[in-house]
């Protein structure tokens, strides 16, 4: 039976300190008697991470698993670590390189996301992100002293993005993964960003539930995966959904075994060439997607699926509502003026929202 007293956390397992990972600051959060869970919060990949287990006695063991999974994902697929397997592939042409099982899994997930969205979630935008100044985890104020300015006609305003030039042919269909043999077209730099984080959440939650037999929630930068049963005394996980503190908020119940992801045009913003930009690019032009939506949150059976849909919805702009509806995807979209649109059975928010 779960207890209300979390155990003392043991020393985290030894591992190589990654470049961008800050020193974990695990905290065991005493919970209310009515909520017999234990929580660990830390900083990962320049964002907040949270682990919640339904049995406090298993928090340390669960944390070790999550660390192992996220470490493996980072070592394989981080664009921000020079020593990652992905970085060692380099921007130079790569043909038929056998990669690790983890990197193959991450690339496969990214290609699935691309196929499912007709390329709206595109893993081949690494060079575009670098050109915009997003090269070291936290975007720089301006790339290389303006040496690599944003496209001249880029304009980000409410609901408007001007394309900088001709529509580009997508490169992702030419990324080949045959088993563990990866082929990347010349000049293409992979960025597995969003999908890798979601895969990490899925993998970590699944492993914790399978190996420890406990209900678990893993949140990596707000991308949430759950596995196993809900905490004792309840049938679901409560999740607050809110991007910035000034944005509309709601609280929902997420069924065990499901996931939730939020994509935002308000986070990871910086200026490039004197213009405001954010990190979700429209692959057609290689520039930030028009900020029709401040944020999009989607629920799905996996975090990868949820993140794929939320990211693509940002890229699709106004067309996202019809698209998400056609997929029967439970989603919550907050537009540039803070108005909320929901699809696919997401609870409506009336006169004050549906949450706390």
């Amino acid at each position, binding site marked *: 039976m779960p207890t209300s007293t979390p155990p003392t956390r043991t020393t985290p397992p030894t591992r190589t300190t990654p470049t961008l990972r800050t020193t974990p600051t695990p905290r065991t959060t005493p919970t*209310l008697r*009515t*909520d017999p869970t234990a929580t660990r*919060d830390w900083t990962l990949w320049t964002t907040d991470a*949270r682990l919640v287990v339904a049995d406090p006695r298993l928090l340390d063991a669960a944390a070790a698993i999550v660390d192992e999974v996220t470490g493996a994902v980072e070592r394989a697929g981080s664009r921000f670590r020079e020593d990652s397997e992905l970085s060692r592939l380099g921007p130079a042409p790569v043909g038929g390189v056998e990669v690790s099982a983890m990197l193959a899994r991450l690339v*496969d997930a990214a290609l699935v996301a691309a196929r499912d969205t007709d390329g709206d979630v595109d893993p081949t935008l690494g060079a575009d992100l670098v050109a915009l100044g997003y090269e070291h985890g936290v975007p720089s104020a301006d790339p290389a002293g303006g040496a690599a300015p944003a496209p001249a006609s880029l304009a980000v305003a409410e609901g408007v993005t001007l394309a900088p030039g001709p529509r580009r042919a997508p490169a992702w269909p030419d990324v080949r993964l045959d088993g563990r043999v990866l082929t990347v077209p010349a000049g293409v730099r992979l960025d597995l960003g969003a999908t890798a984080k979601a*895969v990490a959440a899925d993998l970590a*939650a*699944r492993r914790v539930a399978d190996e420890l037999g406990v209900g678990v*929630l893993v949140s990596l930068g707000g991308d*949430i995966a759950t596995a196993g049963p809900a905490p004792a005394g309840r*049938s679901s*996980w*409560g*999740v*607050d*959904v*809110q991007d910035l503190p000034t944005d509309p*908020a*709601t*609280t*929902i*119940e997420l*069924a*065990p*075994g499901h996931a939730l*992801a*939020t994509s*935002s045009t308000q*986070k990871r913003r910086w200026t490039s060439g004197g213009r405001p930009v954010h990190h979700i690019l429209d692959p057609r032009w290689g520039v930030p997607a028009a900020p029709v939506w401040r944020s999009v949150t989607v*629920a799905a*059976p*996996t975090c990868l*699926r*949820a993140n794929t849909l939320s990211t693509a919805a940002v890229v699709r702009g*106004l067309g996202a*509502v*019809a698209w998400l*509806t*056609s997929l029967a*995807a*439970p989603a919550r979209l907050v*537009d540039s*003026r*803070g*108005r*909320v*649109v*929901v*699809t*696919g*059975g*997401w609870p*409506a*928010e*009336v*006169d004050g*929202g*549906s949450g*706390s």
Partner: protein
Amino acid sequence: MDRTPDTTRDTGRRRARTVTAAVGLSAVAIAGATSVGVFVPGSLDASASTTGDTSSSQSGTSADSGTSTDQGSTDSGSTDQGSTDSGSSGAVTTPVQPSTGQGSQARSSGS
């Protein structure tokens, strides 16, 4: 980030109504959304789309979301939709239900 799992407090957070038609969304978008009946009928007033800071209004009334414990998969399946049609009633069940007021364990926001 520690959060006290208490959803009955007034957090002072900004709240919003779900928008309906004619708030600047495209006809395509509106048609798509209304096809599943998720919009709140009535208000077409875009100016009333937000209510600002209000007192707590816990709208969750369901004591049990009725969800299964199916664990899903970590695979990158591309066909799952995350919702099921319950059949003859026409009601749609989803993995997301209104808050039951039992508190929250996490927060989803962009990163």
